[in-house]
């Protein structure tokens, strides 16, 4: 059982009134059972000038995992060695809500006139986890009237190149009604934490959002706050893929990353939609009716394909079981009308293995797929798609690396996605496509996707391959 630590100091005249407001006597230490372990409340100082209450949460990570109270997965190594015991986190928020429930509700039977009185308060969180670091702490607390002192904590002073941890030594100062201050912590601690591992159940989310009543609606970062709550809704049980990450001492996200968990990035770019439009347009132009979306991910293109009855048969293929599960959910497969449902199939497979189930279709789409493959595996993809499946049409889209200079937020020389193994210039893409054609009997044409910059070209490049025998037939 290990401690999480938080103090609240009042410097109001008759500072020990804090004890009345909190319903906790300043001269006694008290212990409470909370879901994550034990909470202790005591007062390091209690004078008329200055009264400080400390909340210690002793978390038992072993019990935490065993009890599965927080949806932990016993097979995830990270659950045993984690920062929860030390860091102010969502569990601290839950403990706050329990231990100081009446104070947060703004009731005080003994001194009801204290309840609405703003007090000069100082809140100290020695290790506050903050995704977004010190600036994020300021961004969330300053609009609420706090003056924020936030100092990042180094990961390890003996390894300076690791830089700062996500922990921020934080002091909040402000004159605030206590109940309000508590509700700020209650809501914003989990938002800052943005943890994936410890998911509070859905009714607790509702509670937290309710607690923001009165100030959340006007908060300039309201959208981010809400979004981070939703981002918590990740599957709780480790997938087979993520367990393999642990075999190699990697965080689960390093391998099990086929599904984009980052709500902030999803569909942020109109480019994603334009890319889908371009692919659909090309498919229609080629008269393809039976289409494979190879590397369909969460099914964004599938959704549009089945909305057009011209596509009589749609096969979504991905190598990630999790991506397929998400696609199934997103597409509402089990509630889809029979007539649509009959046109769509999802299937686990891999472009690096031959798969006869891919044969016989009009078109295969590889939308933003090739760049996720190590260059040494491209011949396997070529064999699977161009030599074996051999559809009439193959559509490949991939980033145009020349365009990267137009992305201000992208550091020079870095790729657009962590998992990209390469990004091609237009010439490199053309060279690859042409050599594939020579070996496999296709002809290719290229088209830009997105604004075709006169200097660096479009953000995305597309190649439309047609099988030679078919192209000849069409010509004659």
């Amino acid at each position, binding site marked *: 059982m*290990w*401690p999480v*630590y938080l103090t609240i100091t009042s410097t109001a005249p008759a500072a020990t009134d804090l004890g009345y407001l909190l319903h906790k006597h300043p*001269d*006694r*230490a008290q212990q409470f059972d909370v879901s994550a372990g034990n909470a202790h409340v*005591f*007062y*390091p100082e209690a004078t008329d000038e200055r009264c*400080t209450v*400390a909340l*210690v949460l*002793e978390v038992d*990570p*072993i*019990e935490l995992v065993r009890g599965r109270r927080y949806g932990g997965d*016993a*097979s995830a190594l*990270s659950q*045993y*060695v*984690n920062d929860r*015991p*030390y*860091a102010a986190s969502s569990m601290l928020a839950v403990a706050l809500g329990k231990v100081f429930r009446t104070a947060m509700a703004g009731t005080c039977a003994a001194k009801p006139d204290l309840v609405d009185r703003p007090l000069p308060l100082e809140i*100290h969180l*020695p*290790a506050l986890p903050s995704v977004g670091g010190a600036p994020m702490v300021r961004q969330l607390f300053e609009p609420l009237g706090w003056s924020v002192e936030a100092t990042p*904590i*180094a*990961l*390890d002073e003996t*390894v300076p190149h690791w830089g700062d*941890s996500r*922990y921020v030594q934080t002091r909040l100062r402000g004159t605030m009604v206590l109940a309000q201050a508590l509700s700020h912590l209650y809501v914003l601690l989990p938002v800052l934490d943005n943890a994936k591992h410890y998911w509070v159940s859905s009714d607790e989310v509702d509670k937290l959002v309710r607690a923001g009543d009165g100030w959340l609606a006007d908060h300039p970062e309201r959208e981010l706050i809400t979004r981070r709550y939703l981002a918590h809704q990740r599957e709780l049980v480790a997938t*087979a*893929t993520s*367990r*393999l990450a*642990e*075999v*190699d001492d*990697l*965080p689960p996200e390093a391998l099990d990353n*086929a599904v984009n968990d980052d709500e902030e990035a999803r569909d942020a770019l109109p480019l994603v939609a334009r890319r889908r439009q371009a692919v659909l347009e090309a498919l229609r132009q080629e008269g393809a009716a039976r289409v494979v979306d190879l590397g369909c991910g969460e099914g964004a293109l599938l959704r549009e394909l089945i909305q057009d009855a011209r596509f009589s048969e749609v096969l979504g293929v991905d*190598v990630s079981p999790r991506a397929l599960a998400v696609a199934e959910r997103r597409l509402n497969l089990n509630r889809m009308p029979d007539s649509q449902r009959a046109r769509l199939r999802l299937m*686990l*497979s*891999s*472009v*690096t*293995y*031959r798969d*006869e*189930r891919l044969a016989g279709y009009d078109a295969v789409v590889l939308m933003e797929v090739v760049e996720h493959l*190590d260059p*040494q595996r491209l011949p*396997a993809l070529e*064999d699977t798609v161009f030599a074996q499946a051999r559809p009439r049409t193959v559509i490949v889209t991939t980033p145009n690396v020349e365009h990267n200079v137009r992305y201000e937020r992208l550091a020079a020389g870095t790729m657009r996605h962590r*998992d990209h193994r390469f990004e091609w210039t237009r010439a490199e893409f053309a060279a690859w496509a042409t050599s594939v054609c020579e070996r496999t009997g296709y002809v290719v044409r290229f088209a830009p996707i997105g604004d075709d910059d006169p200097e660096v070209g479009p953000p995305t490049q597309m190649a439309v391959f047609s099988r030679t025998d078919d192209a000849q037939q069409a010509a004659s």
Partner: protein
Amino acid sequence: MTELAIPELSLVALIGASGSGKSTFARDHFAPTEVISSDFCRGLVSDNENNQAATADAFDVLNYIAGKRLAAGRLTVIDATNVQRDARRELVELARAHDVLPVAIVLDLPEQLCVARTANRPDRDFGVAVVRRQREQLRRSLRGLAKEGFRKVHVLRSVEEVAAATIVREKLLTDFRHEHGPFDVIGDVHGCRSELETLLDTLGYRLNRDERDRPVDAVHPEGRRPVFVGDLVDRGPDSPGVLRLVMGMVKSGHALCVPGNHENKLVRALGGRQVQVTHGLVETLAQLDAETEEFRNEVAEFCYGLISHLVLDDGRLVVAHAGLKEAYHGRASGRVRSFALYGDSTGETDEFGLPVRYPWANDYRGQAMVLYGHTPTPEAEWVNNTMCLDTGCVFGGKLTALRYPEKEVVSVPAEKVWYEPVKPFPVAGEPAPVDVRHHDQLDINDVLGKRVVETAHHGRVTVREENAAGALEVMSRFALHPRWLPYLPPAMAPAATSKRPGLLEHPDEAFASYDSSGVTDLICEEKHMGSRATVLVCRDSSVAVARFGATGGESGAVYTRTGRSFFGPDLSKALLDRVRSAVDAAGLWKQLDTDWILLDSELLPWSAKAEDLLRDQYAAVGAAARAALPAALAGMQTARGRGVVLDGLLERTRARAANAEAFTAAYRRYCWPTDGLDGVGIAPFQVLATQGRTYHDRDHGWHLQVADRLVEAGPDLFRPTRRIRVDTSDPDSVAAGIGWWESLTADGGEGMVVKPFANLTRTRRGIAQPGLKVRGREYLRIIYGPDYTEPQNLAGLRDRNVNHKRSLALREYALGLESLERLARGEPLWRIHEAVFAVLALESEPVDPRL
């Protein structure tokens, strides 16, 4: 007694009116499971065997079951009236679909008898008219049965004949499973008699000659026999001479032979049939004109009598002229014969007007070795357990034989170019264009779904579907090309939980565990503080091309437990160069007689691979703890100072603060800065495989000697593995082992691995664990958390269950050995990959990862 002969594998249609006694006949002559009756199927689908309304569904079921049985190669008897032509046509089609012979047994019994028997059955309500109609249909059918496709038709016309009949099951003509060799399988000769004589001589045969000094037979002193893959004739200088020799050998039982397409055509030409006289047939006919009429007749008879393909040696070897896909082995149908003679063609023709052949061998996944000819290639090469032995002798290439079961290729060069090919014959030794190793391409069916892998050392190992799916993603997206992953190391189980206070693991339990299963000679090896690394290094890049099909100039690989490369291409190359020069200097190529080596090792530091984990998980925990705990401690001390009773909280927090420091110290031992390869070390501890050989039969003393020599040869890269040998029957030795572990771990060392000194060891209970790890107390903080040593935590951790992990470790070990043995035997990539993939899949099973 009348013997009714039927092929061992056939579809037997019983034909007869109701009441003719089909079911009784079936019961008397076949096993119950061999017979599928339409009545029974009616019952299955409708609960009523006589429900005529259910007939269509019943026959669907009947055909389905029959299809499954035939696909599995099982004789199947259809008990239905089958008096209608349409019904029989379906059966003939079914037989053809599975390439088995359809056979008819007709019970043509007198009408009165059938009617009387039917009337006696209370459940049959149809009358004389139905039986009469059925008999009428039968009579009309009788004459046409052979024409309908039934290869044998037996008709029984009386009760007596039925009673006297017995069934004799005959072997298929292709069935030579009882012939176990050894064989010398010889490729297309095409009239090159002289080269054939030289080859037979090279193989150790003695030729017998006739009075005109012409070879007519050849005998091997050790009883070896040639198997000719066909195309003995055409194009070459002496087709009759080749025929005379081969016919003589076959006749005397000294050789076996399958027909080639050229023999097939020759039969038709000799039979006076109109054939297109091309591809060298004209020379053969001219040469035969000089022979006697009698010889020509013998040739015609010989060629006519050749069987499409041979299944030899309990089904382990199949010989067919153009090869044969697995579904056709031991089957009989027109298309099987056509495949065996001409191969699979895509229906297209190439620029020279020759048919484009479908590369069936690339897809071949069968157990049987398939040897064939037909398509000239510059070098005989293994493709998925198949080999084409036509090395274009007549085009100036060579004549090739494969020694079976030795798998040794023996060739003699052509004496000259006897015949100019239509398409330029590729020259041997010329580098093949990149990407020609299409057979390296794996099929999704090699890995996906629930799988069972046969292992030599631990029986069948099952992989669950969901685990295969997880492994597929990692293998496809992150791993190296499977050609560079002939092996993945197994998980290692820890020793059972220690009974000593304050410890989770201790050598006691590891020693006791081996001792209790009779393994007393142990070696303890230092557990390096790094990452498990498999190192595959080839002597040079041309070896990498030849042995592993390298396409990008790679000369090996250094990879993690999930098959990911530790480094990018440039660093990998630099690292392999250094490994290679150490192997050079240590003289291992020569000593191990190999041009590549696969090493089991540990790569240091751990941070080289796991820096993200160290930084984001371990360092983060340390940073949080070291920020929060002092603040909390200060608060508690102030509170206590003013008289607040904290009830142990302060003491607990103080202990936690100390643990957090110890934890930080523990993980820091695993990080040191590396720059490129500077600071990177490799500690090899086992040789896994070299060309044609595995090493789990060599004791660990030998393995560590090899490792020591590498350390000596490349001290700046290679790290030694400290070790101590322990005899569990000697208390002093055990105490020394424990003392050694204590000194290793006292200053934070990771611990040790205890292994049977002899390496692969069998006990009464099967194979022994290849190793048990015993980890140090401080190291375990980064596994179980900073505070695991607190008594109440330790108490909770003690009830860990190591059984699942042990079982998993053994299964993965067996799969690892299996992949290495398959590699050493030169098996196709898909076979090696199957076992490697299974290791990865098992690794994704949910097991407590702290073990």
